[in-house]
């Protein structure tokens, strides 16, 4: 992926508890204000409810729970980002909670890198790339992995000195 003239990635950025995340703009269908939610009893907290999105019933995913953050009460800035993504082989519309949605930006692939194996609190396979911007980090999540694991974070911290320590 190091390559010479890779075109920049058009991405929608949004915040979750102070971290900035980015999604390829092509995935995004719509950004919505909060809608009435219907809880699904028995569903995991990661995807605890459904919403009515233009006559369709779509699941509402809280990515925070995949990244070991706690669910938070909505604010005036809270939005729902509706994306279309494969789920178990079926293209599915999925709503993602966001604390705040920013502009669409171009991310130069040259400033992105793989998630480091060490020093991460998050499950490394939940992160596709990390991008540097103005001394800050943007997380490009690997939705495939996150959805397949149903958002179970199970924080994998790579120990520095083996299991014995």
């Amino acid at each position, binding site marked *: 992926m190091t390559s010479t003239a890779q075109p920049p990635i058009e991405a929608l950025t949004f915040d979750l508890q102070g971290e900035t995340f980015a999604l390829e703009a092509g995935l995004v269908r719509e950004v919505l204000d909060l809608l009435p939610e*219907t809880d*699904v*009893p028995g569903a995991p907290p990661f995807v605890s409810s459904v919403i009515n999105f233009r006559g369709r019933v779509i699941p509402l995913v809280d990515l925070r729970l995949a990244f070991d953050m706690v669910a938070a009460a909505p604010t005036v800035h809270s939005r729902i980002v509706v994306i279309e993504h494969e789920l178990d082989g079926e293209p599915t519309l999925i709503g993602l909670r966001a604390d705040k949605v920013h502009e669409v930006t171009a991310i130069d692939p040259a400033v992105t890198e793989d998630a480091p194996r060490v020093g991460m609190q998050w499950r490394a396979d939940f992160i596709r790339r990390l991008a540097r911007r103005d001394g800050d980090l943007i997380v490009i999540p690997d939705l495939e992995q996150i959805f397949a694991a149903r958002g179970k974070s199970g924080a994998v911290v790579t120990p520095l000195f083996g299991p014995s320590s």
Partner: protein
Amino acid sequence: MTAQDPVETFRQEAQELLEQIEQGLLDLVHRPSERDLIDAVFRGLHTLKGSGAMFGFDALAAFTHHCETAFDRVRKGEVPASPDLVTVVLAALDHMRALAEGRPASDAEGQALLDRLQQVVATAAPAQSVAAEAPPPATDGGLNHWHIRFSLPADALVNGTRPLPLLDELRELGECRVVAITDAVPPLKDLVSSQCHLAWDVTLITPHGRDAIEDVFLFVIDDMTLDIEAITPSAPATADAAPEVAPVRDVTPVAATASSDDGTAAQAGEGRAAKAGGDTVRVPAERLDEMMDRVGELVIAQSRLKQLAASSSDIALRAVAEEIERLASEMRDTMMVVRMVPIAQLFGRFRRLIHDLARDTGKAIALSTEGEGTELDKTVIERLADPLIHLIRNAADHGLETPEQRRAAGKPEAGQIVLAARQSGAEVVITITDDGRGVDRARVRAKAEENGLIQPGQALSDSELLQLIFAPGFSTAATITNLSGRGVGMDVVKRTIEGLRGAIELTSTPGEGSVVSLRIPLTLAIIDGLLVRVGAGRFVIPLSSVEECVELSPEQDRRSTGRSLITLRDQLVPFIRLRQLFASGQPADPHQKVVVVQAGQERVGLVVDQILGDHQTVIKALSGFHAEVGAFSGATILGDGGVALILDIGSLVASGQRQDTPLRAVG
């Protein structure tokens, strides 16, 4: 709407062709000398080869070519369409299917198939070759004189038929004089250059018979006008002495005019002709689904409008709302009909299955079908395929006896399996009947005791005993033969049927056979439901499973903390508190209601806070995330835009049996 990918188009076409060829082959087993069938199979193979090559499916084209060659020899009467040949070509079809779908298909396997094909053709050939030689000398070694007159349909050129190669082929048969008939050519101003206005008069002197001439026109014969007349006295003999395979049709001198009016041909994969002529439109299935979604949304919007109108005093608004309500419901009904497809589509697939089963089990099996015209929702039909395959396998594998056993029992050697469908109200009843040995009660009981499903010696009614077959964990060892494939038990079949909101029932008479009946609702898309409230959430209970609603009196409520039972007309009915199950966390309403539902054989009460009323429920599927929860079969959108979940009564009751523990998060 995007244009369709040509490769995808080819795959669809190939799928249809393969099905047609398959049906033709299976018909050939019973009528091995029927000319129409042989031609239909040959044409199918030829078209498949041609379009395969056109779309770059070279391996498929090359492979199909060999089968086509074999069938060309059948057509020429050199090789009989023996059961062996049919079996090999059927196996080859599976290979072609894999190639067409782009699945990995092993070359070695393909080669093995071709070798077998070669072998079958080679061993069969000498037997018939003498007979095949017979027809040409029918005219005492002399030459036949034929007068041929043919014309093509006006749009033949547009469809890619070219008259010149046809004429060239005729010339190859013998001495030939061709005169074009220009009578039908219109005046210049009316002339359409892309239409074919010519007809041809051909005098042909050839050692060949009528069949050879008809073969020239094989691919266009359905739509064209063709007269072949013998103009020497010796000619009639040819027709009589034509090889055995010929006599079914075309002995009349005025040969085939437009398409297949005779029923047998139409049945034998002659769909192409019908397709060209009929005024039907092919629509990709997902567009229908989209439309159904739109109609669903319309119904929802309409119910909002109705609410608004009801609370308004504007008479004009009310009138419009009523009008829209009527239109929406008509639209919904029309849409349902559009989605209906005849079950023949599904039944057709099982002929192949029976053929293979007969071969693998060494039993003679006759399949007959009834009510193929019965229509069901497209999605339902697709989801019925697997359970039916399983039930048919069961019938063939366990139900039917071996030919020896049948003879000993005084039954005809060939076992009968009857697949029947009929509509009964808003349901379709599908039955699978076999005339085999019937269910061995003693074995079922022994098995169930062994698996701990019942206590040894437990008293059971006959129907309860038979019902055990569908219990999870009951599977006779023999079920997991290679025939039953994935080793799914009858419990999976039952669950699938219940997933379609249907029911399954088994009856059986020892020594005479068994009947499995499936009752399936006509459509999955919209159901009548009862809308209830539990805590803050609203839920839909399918009305078809609701028996009655009663109030849960405070003392019953209090008394039942230890045991969740109410007495209903002298019967004890267990109940489930949905509030507890859904862990809704709010205090219960003072006047809770019990909705009594029928789940399989059981009656169970569901305790809810409030009954909100009837609801026309447009079913929306839940995503993969929530399908795992199990308690809900879908969701629907209410008049106020909110979402209500639809309860899956079967699995709800099953989870309730594990006592009122709240549904636990899967994660």
